[in-house]
């Protein structure tokens, strides 16, 4: 995750400097921020309810499940705030990618094991979403995150 990427080519720089590209990138970053903030707040409202949704996946023993029910919303909140403010963007995008990969793995394992459970992605605020559509949504979000990561401006890239 060190800033070892090669410098942008002239063509890439030319595309990245267009206002429409920068606006689209800004809106996508805000959309991811809003999604993570919403997910965090809905879970932080009632961790004791969210813990049951994590337990439904049957992937972690109890103390870990309880810890995850307070840690995951806290991390989502931090990531959402960073993306909203445009601060520590590289670190926040890295966490978005890590979290989406973990969530997708958990959803996939639930599908493979035939578990009929709710995603729990947004606490109890949005229920009965199943597991397949959230998995597809997560994969689409990973693509967006990849775009945001590779299109970071030189300014937002960490200093060498």
């Amino acid at each position, binding site marked *: 995750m060190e800033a070892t990427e090669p410098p942008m080519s002239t063509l890439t720089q030319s595309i990245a400097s267009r206002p429409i590209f920068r606006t689209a990138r800004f809106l996508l970053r805000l959309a991811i921020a809003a999604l993570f903030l919403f997910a965090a707040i809905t879970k932080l409202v009632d961790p004791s309810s969210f813990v049951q949704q994590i337990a439904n996946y049957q992937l972690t023993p109890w103390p870990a499940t*309880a810890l995850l029910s307070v840690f995951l919303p806290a991390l989502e909140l931090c990531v959402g705030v960073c993306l909203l403010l445009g601060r520590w963007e590289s670190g926040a995008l890295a966490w978005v990618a890590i979290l989406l990969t973990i969530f997708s793995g958990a959803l996939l394992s639930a599908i493979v094991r035939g578990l009929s459970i709710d995603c729990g992605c947004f606490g109890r605020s949005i229920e009965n979403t199943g597991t397949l559509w959230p998995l597809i949504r997560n994969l689409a979000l990973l693509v967006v995150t990849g775009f945001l990561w590779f299109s970071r401006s030189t300014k937002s890239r960490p200093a060498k």
Partner: protein
Amino acid sequence: MTALRQTGFILLIAVGLAGVTAAVHPKRPSFLGPPRDPNEVTLAQTKQWAGNILWVDARSESEFAAEHVPDAFCLNFDNWTERFPKFLDRYNPGQRVVVYCTATSCQLSREIAAKLKASGVDDAYFLEGGWEAWKQQNRP
């Protein structure tokens, strides 16, 4: 600041926030053990209710056809639309409804019990251990 350092700082802040949540949130989870669902009942409890229980089998129709709790009613998400009116014909208000599915790992009984409650069946519960537990206790 490197991306790695940023991820580290975000992690530290999140851990701190999680610690505060775990310490002071009025709805923080219990870290000692999972809370017992008030709608979950054990076989021992159902024996005390003998004679006033309507058993609901939430497994598939083929599993139900193979074997089931005597007089159980097959009701799951797949046949809900067709079977729920028939369930209401069988159900007497005041009767306790106990839903079971395959085993403890099965979540269907919990969800069907919740759906029954949402549909107006107040005394709907789900069986701890499911069909496996019932079969073990009632083995000939």
